[in-house]
């Protein structure tokens, strides 16, 4: 049987995740170059949802069965193992998500095969694959040799064409799957928001960090964002503190943005935040600490207290 590559099609509240469509576009040129077929794997959900994100795939294997509606690591891992048996694909590409990390690692352990979470590139070499990843806070790229079968990677990368979401006539093969019952983990309650903003398209972003401190200052920063015709973004610390919802988080576990103007308000500039915003056109940061790391990554470094600086900026913009 000719070699094949699988892409994991992850379902979210609004259908197949765009991250999975991006993973398809990442894998497609590689499959073509290596003469491998490219198939999608989706677990649970309805076939209707799948058709929306399967552009570029030869077919989609859709695992269906009791207990596969909600993601549970062992149930989904077992289902994929049952599907592969002793004839796994050469390579499985997962989106860089919590599910992708769980499953890529799970299957790598099951088959004693190479894994790399967060791969940036992949090429075939001899018996295995060489995949690279960025480490040391963006300063070094590391090459990993991945052996065995199936090699499992997660990636945030995408192909030159980018993800294409849209209806297509891909063949969806329904595969009845049992075994999920072995995982007695139960989802009691989910509180998920559908993404309401697309920060990727924003020209101006005003981002809020833990330094905002109080409601009054937060409202001032919001006013500043309005005046700059910008979207509000946030660090993880600001999201955890409840200032903004998760869909506005920027960074390693949030959106990667590149607006023309990025204004960082009370943000220290941790590496996990930087990876999401360092490619912005012009970066302005306001911080009370003259040694805040964010200043090393800013064009304009405003030293001062947000409670003073933001109202002044508002007055100047209104004036």
């Amino acid at each position, binding site marked *: 049987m000719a070699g094949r590559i699988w892409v994991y099609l992850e379902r979210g509240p609004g259908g197949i995740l765009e991250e999975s469509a991006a993973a398809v576009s990442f894998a497609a040129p590689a499959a073509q170059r290596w003469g491998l077929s490219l198939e999608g794997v989706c677990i649970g959900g309805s076939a209707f949802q799948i058709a929306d994100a399967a552009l570029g795939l030869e077919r989609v294997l859709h695992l269906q069965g009791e207990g596969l509606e909600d993601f549970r690591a*062992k149930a989904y891992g077992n289902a994929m193992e049952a599907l592969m048996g002793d004839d796994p694909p050469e390579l499985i590409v997962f989106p860089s998500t919590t599910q992708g990390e769980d499953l890529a*690692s799970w299957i790598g352990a099951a088959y004693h095969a190479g894994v790399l979470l967060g791969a940036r590139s992949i090429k075939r070499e001899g018996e295995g694959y060489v995949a690279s990843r960025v480490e040391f806070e963006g*300063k070094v790229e590391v090459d990993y040799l991945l052996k065995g079968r199936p090699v499992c990677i997660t990636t945030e990368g995408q192909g030159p064409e980018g993800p294409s979401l849209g209806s297509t006539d891909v063949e969806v093969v329904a595969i009845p799957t049992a075994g999920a019952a072995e995982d007695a983990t139960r989802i009691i309650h989910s509180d998920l928001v559908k993404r309401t903003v697309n920060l990727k398209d924003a020209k101006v972003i005003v981002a809020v960090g833990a330094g905002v401190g109080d409601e009054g200052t937060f409202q001032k920063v919001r006013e500043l964002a309005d005046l700059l015709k910008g979207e509000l973004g946030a660090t993880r610390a600001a999201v955890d503190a409840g200032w903004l919802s998760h869909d506005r988080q920027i960074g390693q576990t949030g959106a990667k943005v590149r607006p023309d103007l990025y204004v960082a308000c009370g943000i220290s500039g941790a590496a996990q935040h930087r990876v999401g915003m360092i490619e912005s056109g012009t970066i302005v940061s306001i911080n009370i600490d003259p040694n805040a790391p964010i200043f090393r990554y800013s064009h304009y470094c405003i030293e001062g207290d947000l409670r003073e600086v933001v109202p002044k900026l508002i007055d100047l913009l209104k004036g």
Partner: protein
Amino acid sequence: MHAAVWVREIWDTRDLVGEILDGSGRPKWNEWEGRFDPEDLNALEMALQLKDADSAWKVTGLSVGPVRKLDVLRECLYRGVDYAVRISHEGQASLHQEALWMAKAVNQLEDVRVVLTGIQINEGDYAQKGALLARRLGWPLVSYVEAIEAQEGDKLRLRRAVEGGIQVVEAPLPAVISVGVALLKEDPRAPRSAKAKLKLKHKKTPIPEWHARDLVAGENQVGLPPVEILGYRPLEQREFPSQRINGVEVSELKRMLSELREKGLVR
């Protein structure tokens, strides 16, 4: 009831300045400090909280490999674990091997109902260690856990952070729990500090070593590690021609805004 925590010492690679690679293109590991993997420390905290809530729990810290600069197992003792075990081995170990040895060690401990570990992917960590271990043990896995909300008999109710929100999950024991990031002091995962009393008590407490060879004795060895690092390449860094602005000076702020206007960034 026994909770095991897989903890590690990692290199502190935060905010490194200057060259990262030496003349032969390898990271300058030995120039850096060691630190307790911060999410492993959160996992330890969660295990200790189980014990705080119910004294029937015992907690064991487990770690693979020799101490480099910081003995994370001793740090576990200083925070209140009941036992600590070091898994020793020769040469380099891949995460696949570490997970295998960890699974064997967990099976040798008595009545382990839960293994907790952190989710952080550090330099060289190619996979999630909690997931590798869960598959080795054949146990359910719940990852990115923020809090143990309750224990109900042989089940834990867990809150986890997933894309776009949170999920509350009931996990039957035994299970593996991977614990996420705690950024705020009031976060339930925020780790406690070492206790002075325990420091005195455990300064010299011997930590038993179990050799990896003995853990897998009599079994088919797993094959060669399927992951190998081939090399490192420095990446070009973006330069930031930057200006300092005194936030108290309205004139300086005004000048900045007019520069931004000229560039069409502010209307």
